[in-house]
């Protein structure tokens, strides 16, 4: 396994950890750093985070497994989080969700064979006013329709290929 964090990153994180009152505050930050460099957080990443934070691996994993934006298993280059909460339900997210599965040829939790997309449901994205909504990477998309989804997917795919 490639190095999870560089020496500089580790020094930087240690500094941040030393500055907070309670190391638990930074569990997410450390895990995100691992995820940024590795794509997802393997067991070794949890152990490394635990070591840096002075916590047990279990204490870190409790947080890591609670949040669906921390990936504890390998994901594609881009992760699609489709909102699976109440406002989006009332505005037809089901159609969007079904369409995504059809065009990508995968069910929730799977990754496309080209390794490009992973599809996951998520709780409210805070974009209820633009529901139905989804998030790909850090980009938020609202007012989804089947047509819009097709364009978004094409653009996103193009970006990964570029």
């Amino acid at each position, binding site marked *: 396994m490639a190095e999870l964090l560089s020496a500089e990153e580790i020094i930087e994180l240690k500094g941040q950890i030393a500055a907070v009152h309670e190391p638990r505050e930074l569990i997410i930050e450390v895990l995100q750093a691992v995820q940024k460099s590795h794509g997802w957080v393997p*067991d070794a990443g*949890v152990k490394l985070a635990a070591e840096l934070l002075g*916590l*047990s*691996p*279990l*204490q870190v*994993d*409790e947080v890591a*497994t*609670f*949040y*669906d934006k921390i990936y504890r298993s390998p994901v594609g280059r881009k992760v699609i989080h489709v909102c699976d909460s109440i406002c989006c339900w009332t505005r037809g997210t089901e159609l969007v969700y079904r369409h995504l599965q059809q065009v990508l040829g995968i069910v929730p939790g799977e990754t496309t064979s080209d390794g490009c997309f992973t599809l996951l449901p998520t709780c409210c994205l805070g974009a209820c006013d633009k529901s139905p909504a989804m998030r790909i990477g850090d980009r938020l998309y609202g007012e989804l329709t089947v047509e819009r989804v097709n364009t978004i997917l094409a653009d996103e795919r193009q970006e990964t290929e570029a």
Partner: protein
Amino acid sequence: MPTLIIDNQSVTVPEGTNVLEAAQQLGIVVPHFCYHEALGAVGACRLCAMLFIDGPVKGMQMSCMVEAKDGMVVSTEAPEAVAYRGQVIEWLMLNHPHDCPVCDEGGECQLQDMTVASGHSVRRYTGKKRTYLNQDLGPFIHHEMNRCIQCYRCVRTYQDYCGGTDYGVLGSNQRLYFGRFQDGPLESPFAGNLIDLCPTGVLTNKPYRFTSRFWDLQEAPSVCPHCSLGCATIPGARFRELQRVRSGNNPEINGCFICDRGRFGYDYVNHSDRPRTPLLHGEEIPWNEALETLLQRLTKLIECHGSDSIALLGSGRASLEANYLLQRLSEQLGSAAPVYGSHAGRDRAARAATTLPTELSASLADVRNSDLILLTGADPLAEGPMLALAIRQAVRNGGRVMICDPRPVELPCSTEYLACQPQELLQLLSALSLGETLPTKLQPLVEALQLAQRPVLIGGGDLLGAEGTTALLAAAQKLNSEDRSCLAMVLLPEANSFGAALLAADGPDFEQLLADMASGRIKALVCLEADPLTDCPDRQQLLQGLEQLDFLAVFDHLPSLIAAKADLLLPTTALAEGAGTLINNEGRMQAFAPVFSPGQPLRITSQGNHPPRSFSTTTPGALPCQAWALLAKLCDLPVDLAKIRRELATQEPRLAGLPDLLAEGSGQRIQSADKPLSQPHALITEQVDALQLLACETLYGSEVLSAHSSPLDPVRPQPYLLLHELDADRLGIAAGDLVRLSAGEIQLTLPAQLSDRMAAGVVIVPHLRRTELESFYPGQPSQPCRVEKVSAL
């Protein structure tokens, strides 16, 4: 004290009681899961719904989350409440497997009980159930996650109450998983409490798995014999075998929890080598002959050699009643008073501990409630594990813990640690008791003691000895005032060390006995559940003394070294097989009731097969008798425990409450002595240059009964030696290196462990019975030693 009405009955409860508890006081049990008396209420399971009809709160409420208030009118039976609870239990049961008959929790399952109580009897859900892979959680606990109802009790027990960090909750919503990061043994020495606290079959007792249904067990209220704290336990037996121990509930001592030594140390009772027949020179003889022989031999020896040729040896393992009757026997024979304890140092420390006035003695409840705990020479996890848990609760309530010790004392909470040499501990305590100034390094301690409202001083008899113990008690008395109480607690080696020491009073100790044996004056020795061969630090002298005996009689239930040498062996019952009283380290008398009758376990007689098909009117291995009953016969007294207790209470005014003692209930403190506490003197200690060797108790492997318990085999440590990093550096030793330890005549090769959290100049070895380290005995002054490197790791 608010008064409220629940189901048309009025009840008055203390301030702060919640409505669920108030209903329980009326005998109304409303289904609930997440509330637990020791863990409190969190309102998570939504099961304890009641309808609030009148008063400050109205409507359907979670009763565990509502504080009882005046004027409340509450119904547990309102149709809305019943329907609500029915729905909640139905969805709690959605994913639950439908296989109680193959679940080890069945029969003592809160989920079964609550499901029935909530009226859910037909399953409507036909969808798929959520399933999990289980983990291997080590030798004590079996894991079956499919049975989980997400009540969080395990996490609250393990992390919050016990301070464990390796078990918790993973995932979210429908995918919650209660377990470890990876498979592996649970690290907390209190992990066994998960068995009692998990209300379903997720976490069950592994050594006991598939052994019995709850309703087939014989159970009785009992007291744990594995340290001096005396936690309440409920042992369970079946097929002439002690199969498990669960926690009892003594609010003054352990609350609802026990340690894993107490839970899994029981198997000595089932030991296959346990003495079960009276033996004279290895030949079986009937009981009446055995007792007659004993009396005849003793009287004969007295006739020939005088009454001081007989020595009787009691112990902190034997009950108060048996130890007392040993005294009666000595009076009857005209011999010297019994010696109590095969280790003179420990005996003397215990005797010093008995001088503490009752009002200054701290219970574990006092410790939980303290705001400053000062540990001097006490290692709770090794010498009284539940004390560690009590200290953790004090810290959770904002209390502070300061540790002065040569050992790296670890606790499941935050502490302040000051490394001290053993002799510094004595100086510290005597300075405190005399109001002298402390060395600057101990200044933080003085300030903390000034600020504290409810300080407790805790010491270990092993490290402090009689002198240090006296100083500790005097220090508590000095710091105790009208405005704020300062209490003390001393950890002693055995469950009834206090009781034995109380009876010992000013009598002889084992050192005097050894000298008398060596001089050849003693011709007969009678041991009552005592094994000097494993407990007397001076084994050489003891062996010489034993050589000179004409007659050795041993009452015991352990296959001890001394039992193997006995001319006359009198098999006694283990604690769970009889009744009696123990006095714990705070001076609390506690009675225990018989759980089952002795007999060779079916597991042994049938060797894993069908029980033998031959019939007999006697039970195999059922001969062991209660030691007190045998001694009563020898003294020609009625075999009647109540009478013996009454007599003892009149003889010893400090035991006045003994006749009223019940096995149920939280026991009773003994009365204070009418003597004032003795005052320690200022101590002058000389500087030592050589490394000092200190043998210390460990959590597993030191206590003699649990050392014979097979469920603890996997957790007993291998011998090792512990050094300060600075000393190791100087000697060129790295962690894991093999080193040669030379102390006195003994030379041993051991792996080295290093620590920077201990006193420099001290070498520590654990007291591990039945290993090469067993000859290093705690409760002794440290001895000079040498450590050299033999080979690297």
